[in-house]
């Protein structure tokens, strides 16, 4: 009990220092709670976002093999009897052309729905008008209504094929309501006209009760977001029962179960990443508590000696010091549990502001449990070493400074004089080298392990490489400090001299602070670098993969003349059709080697103009020459990798096998890159690559010409979206097509990366802040310890601003050294990452860095250090010299 009292008093004695250590624990505990809360909230948000357009439906049933019409009444009756099936809704999906009174014409899907269901079936809400009020009423999504320029009350003419009369018939319907466009739906399904199912059945002349889709909703109580595996298993179980009931002429699509299955993996991965990042903060908090406790016991060596001389045992001293750190931990944990809620709201902000999904913050009891356990863990782990060191203090050593001085041997003097710690240096280099070497074995783990194990391994190895590098930096820290101090001595002679030496004097404290700062800075910069570089790489690779500003994917056969219509549209520069691929076995002439490739037919006269030119990389000849030569019948351009693999060159012939027919084609060029196609320069990646021929050659070898996609290049300065929309409104009326613009894809990808960047950095910045707190404690202790020394310097005529300056420089030099070390660490590993990637990738990774993050972290670390040291040292200069000198006498 007595020791507990002493422990509590000691915690209270150094109030600021204790408060900062507590704050470190608060940050770590609140972060772990927040990360768990965010991941759990995200689970619900993600599931809702991805399954939202299902309108709360869990499965749907179609005729096996097609979307053909069937009589739904009997099926519905049978399915409804199955346990856990709540609701079944027949839907009739059909295609027609809609004309508005203004003469606008758009190809749409008509959707027949039982008017008793409500639009929630589609995951949408009515934003204007009402639900199907009369039999010939219809409802449109907002975007379609805008395209057709109709509003509530207007009439709409639908041209529908009637199975009764076997011809197209015109039916007039009235717009009763407009609904929000369901976000998650595929783009073609967003353009639909909703009608009463019986009205549509009548209109198309099918029998009453006919439908082509049955939506099924399960009892919602079976959905448990905390246990997705069980939920999916349950859904599969119901699905099997339905399949048993309806027979094998129908397919049961368990769409929600498969979405949940996908999301589950994504969430597990996300949780693993977030928790790994959080662990860095936890490690920082442990070091913070440890360094605070070490400073406490260093100050109290004498006091501990007295307690020992009064008869306290080693274990009692151990318990006393451990108790102190536990007190810090318990206070920190209690505040951290409350702060967790606030931090969750902050962390969730990037996701909320992105608007991709709605996030409802959900708290669970185990979040608090994690936080509590972690808080106690941090304080006990941080307290063990200081408690052990304190227990080893002997009364003699503690009470007599001269005895302590006498114990310093000659060798120790020599060791102290050495600037660089050689064992630390060698240890760091070995760890760095070993882990860098081991990274090359990661592919083996990729092969055998799960993605999460793989990811964790990457982090562990990256972390170890970084640790090795940081240890090297710690070892050479004295050189860095001396170097920077020397530079600064050109401006501030005395101040820089004293501050540099002071940093070296408190070696252990300086090194611990340096380690915390540089490690946390390196991590946040590294993750920032990798995220930024990945975004830049994905942007380039998406550009190369899509190949042009707009790509049109027809869902039904389209005639090549469509391209002419498109090229006449305003803002279009060039159009190039690309045929569906012909997957063939390609080999050298003697069939020594062969592999599978995809041959595409392209319009050779428009391809170069329609695709992004920067990704055209043809070996030896100019792209124009290559295209001209390709016009010759029986010629082909293959990838460089394939040419290497087959051992063929330009002018050689390759053999291809199509449905037991063998054809030879002449290679007129090899390319390492081609926009919109998969080309490679690596022999190892030759299998499955693409090759291009002219449309004529393609027709000759395949016998058909089906357009798979059409590349459309837009004039500079014209918004591709407006061109895409005019394509949808013209060609889209006649053909079922999907129009994709590169800018839209890029934007959503960028949004995703920005969200990821914001989340990662917000989690990792906690570690940096905890390290900055560690620096703050070090500054406070350093100034408090040297009050008498400052008195002596003042007595020989040093002015107050010089005293403040030397304290500021001391903090600044350490901040700069740590920042430099962190920066070097992050850059070295980023370079390793980019280099190894570029060895095996066709598209080089651009080395772009998040400059704002670099500046932000530098400011956070250096400005805090400068302000804090200025305030604290100013306080000391306000003290009279005599008081300062007296403080020294007491020490």
């Amino acid at each position: 009990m007595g020791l507990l009292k002493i422990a509590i008093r000691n915690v209270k004695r150094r109030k600021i220092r204790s408060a900062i250590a507590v704050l470190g624990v608060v940050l770590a505990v609140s972060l772990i709670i927040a990360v768990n809360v965010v991941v759990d909230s995200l689970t619900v948000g993600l599931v809702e976002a991805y399954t939202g357009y299902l309108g709360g439906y869990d499965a749907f049933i179609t005729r096996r093999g097609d979307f053909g019409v069937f009589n739904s009444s009997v099926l519905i009756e049978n399915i409804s009897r199955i346990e856990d099936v709540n609701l079944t809704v027949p839907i009739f999906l059909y295609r027609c052309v809609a004309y508005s009174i203004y003469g606008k014409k758009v190809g749409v899907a008509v959707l027949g729905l039982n008017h008793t269901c409500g639009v929630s079936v589609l995951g949408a809400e009515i934003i204007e008008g009402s639900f199907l009020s009369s039999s010939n009423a219809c409802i449109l999504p907002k975007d379609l209504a805008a395209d057709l320029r109709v509003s509530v009350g207007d009439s709409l003419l639908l041209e529908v094929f009637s199975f009764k009369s076997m011809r197209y018939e015109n039916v007039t319907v009235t717009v009763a309501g407009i609904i929000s466009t369901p976000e998650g739906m595929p783009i073609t399904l967003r353009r639909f006209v909703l009608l009463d199912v019986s009205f549509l059945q009548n209109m198309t002349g099918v029998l009453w009760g006919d439908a082509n889709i049955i939506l099924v909703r399960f009892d919602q109580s079976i959905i448990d977001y905390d246990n997705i595996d069980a939920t999916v298993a349950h859904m599969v179980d119901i699905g099997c029962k339905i399949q048993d009931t309806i027979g094998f002429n129908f397919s049961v699509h368990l769409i929600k179960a498969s979405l949940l299955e996908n999301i589950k993996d994504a969430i597990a991965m996300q949780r693993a990443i977030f928790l790994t990042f959080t662990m860095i903060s936890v490690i920082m908090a442990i070091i913070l508590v440890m360094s605070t406790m070490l400073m406490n016991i260093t100050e109290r060596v004498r006091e501990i000696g007295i307690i020992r001389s009064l008869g306290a045992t080693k274990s009692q001293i151990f318990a006393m010091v451990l108790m102190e750190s536990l007190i810090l931990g318990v206070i920190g944990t209690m505040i951290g549990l409350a702060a967790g809620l606030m931090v969750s709201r902050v962390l969730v902000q990037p996701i909320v502001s992105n608007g991709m999904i709605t996030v409802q913050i959900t708290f669970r009891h185990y979040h608090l449990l994690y936080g509590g356990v972690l808080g106690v863990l941090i304080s006990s782990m941080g307290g063990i070493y200081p408690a052990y060191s304190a227990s080893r203090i002997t009364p003699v050593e503690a009470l007599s400074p001269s005895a302590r001085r006498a114990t310093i041997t000659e060798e120790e003097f020599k060791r102290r004089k050495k600037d660089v710690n050689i064992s630390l240096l060698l240890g760091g280099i070995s760890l760095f080298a070993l882990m860098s070497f081991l990274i090359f074995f990661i592919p083996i783990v990729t092969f055998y392990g799960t993605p999460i194990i793989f990811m964790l391994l990457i982090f562990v190895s990256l972390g170890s490489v970084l640790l090795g590098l940081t240890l090297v930096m710690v070892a050479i820290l004295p050189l860095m400090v001396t170097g920077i101090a020397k530079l600064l001595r050109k401006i501030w002679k005395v101040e820089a001299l004293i501050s540099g030496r002071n940093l070296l004097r408190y070696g252990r404290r300086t090194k611990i602070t340096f380690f915390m700062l540089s490690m946390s800075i390196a991590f946040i910069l590294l993750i920032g670098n990798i995220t930024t570089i990945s975004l830049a790489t994905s942007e380039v690779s998406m550009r190369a993969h899509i190949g042009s500003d707009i790509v049109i994917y027809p869902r039904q056969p389209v005639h090549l003349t469509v391209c002419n219509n498109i090229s006449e549209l305003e803002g279009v520069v060039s159009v190039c059709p690309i045929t569906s691929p012909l997957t063939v076995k390609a080999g050298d002439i003697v069939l020594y080697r062969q592999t599978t490739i995809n041959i595409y037919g392209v319009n050779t006269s428009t391809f170069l103009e329609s695709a992004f030119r920067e990704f055209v990389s043809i070996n030896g000849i100019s792209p124009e020459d290559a295209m001209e030569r390709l016009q010759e019948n029986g010629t082909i351009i293959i990838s460089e990798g394939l040419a290497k693999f087959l051992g063929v060159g330009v002018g050689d012939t390759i053999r291809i096998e199509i449905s037991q027919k063998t054809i030879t084609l002449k290679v007129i060029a090899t390319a390492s890159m081609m926009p919109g196609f998969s080309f490679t320069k690596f022999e190892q990646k030759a299998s499955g690559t693409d090759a291009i021929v002219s449309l004529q050659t393609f027709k000759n070898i395949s016998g058909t010409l089906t357009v798979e996609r059409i590349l459309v290049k837009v004039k500079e300065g014209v918004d591709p979206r407006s061109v895409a929309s005019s394509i949808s409104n013209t060609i889209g009326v006649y053909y079922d097509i999907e129009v994709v613009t590169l800018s839209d894809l890029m934007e959503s990808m960028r949004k995703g990366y920005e969200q990821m960047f914001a989340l990662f950095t917000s989690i990792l910045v906690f570690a940096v802040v905890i390290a900055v707190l560690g620096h703050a404690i070090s500054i406070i202790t350093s100034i408090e310890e040297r009050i008498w020394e400052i008195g002596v310097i003042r007595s020989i005529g040093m002015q107050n601003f010089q005293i403040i300056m030397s304290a500021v420089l001391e903090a600044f030099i350490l901040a700069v050294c740590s920042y430099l070390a962190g920066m070097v660490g992050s850059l070295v590993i980023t370079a390793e990452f980019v280099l190894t990637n570029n060895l095996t990738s066709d598209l080089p990774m651009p080395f772009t860095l998040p400059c704002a993050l670099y500046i932000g972290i530098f400011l956070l670390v250096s400005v805090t250090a400068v302000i804090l040291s200025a305030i604290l040292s100013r306080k000391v200069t306000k003290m009279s010299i005599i008081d300062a000198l007296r403080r020294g006498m007491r020490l």
Partner: protein
Amino acid sequence: MKDMEDIVIETVNLTKIYRLGPVEVRALYDVNLKVRRGEMVAVVGPSGSGKTTLLNMIGGLDKPTRGKVYIEGMDITRMDDKELAILRRKKIGFVFQFYNLIPVLDAYENVELPLIITGVPEEERRRRVERLLKLVGLEDRMHHRPDELSGGEQQKVAIARALANNPSIILADEPTGDLDTETGMKIMNLLKEISREEKVTVVVVTHDPQVAAIADRRIHLRDGRIIRED
């Protein structure tokens, strides 16, 4: 007139009263003192007699409650912090009982410190530091840090540092307090020699009569008053 010019330190009715709660403690009371250039004076008296307070007043480390302190004719009681810092830098050198030196700097750098603060060029600094360390007999231990020096050697470095800016006054507060008798005597003789050769006024606070005997003059303090001079 010449006599007046030679007075380096003069205190007029110097009084310092501390308040410890309701109690008033008179640390110094109407102290009038004159010290000439090159003179070595020992201030002696029992503990609590006001010796250190007097020294602090003369050095401008503390302000009197009443009275004046003149250093080379300048009234330092009217000076602000900045002027006092400059005065200490140029005119006064301090030697304390212990913790005199900056532990992170070696002997050479400790002596050099006041010269850098004053802005003396590097070449001149080196010349002066080497001369001073030779003067105190530490030319062989120039690049040793304080924790590698003995107590006596540390005090010698402190004296050399006090002399760095060619001050007119050296104020030493119990400079031998932490040393054995023999080393203490050596330090005192060194101070005496310096005061004679360099024409520096030395005021030494001590409670050791043997140490005080070396000084030219002894001022005995008790309860904040001068009771005797010999």
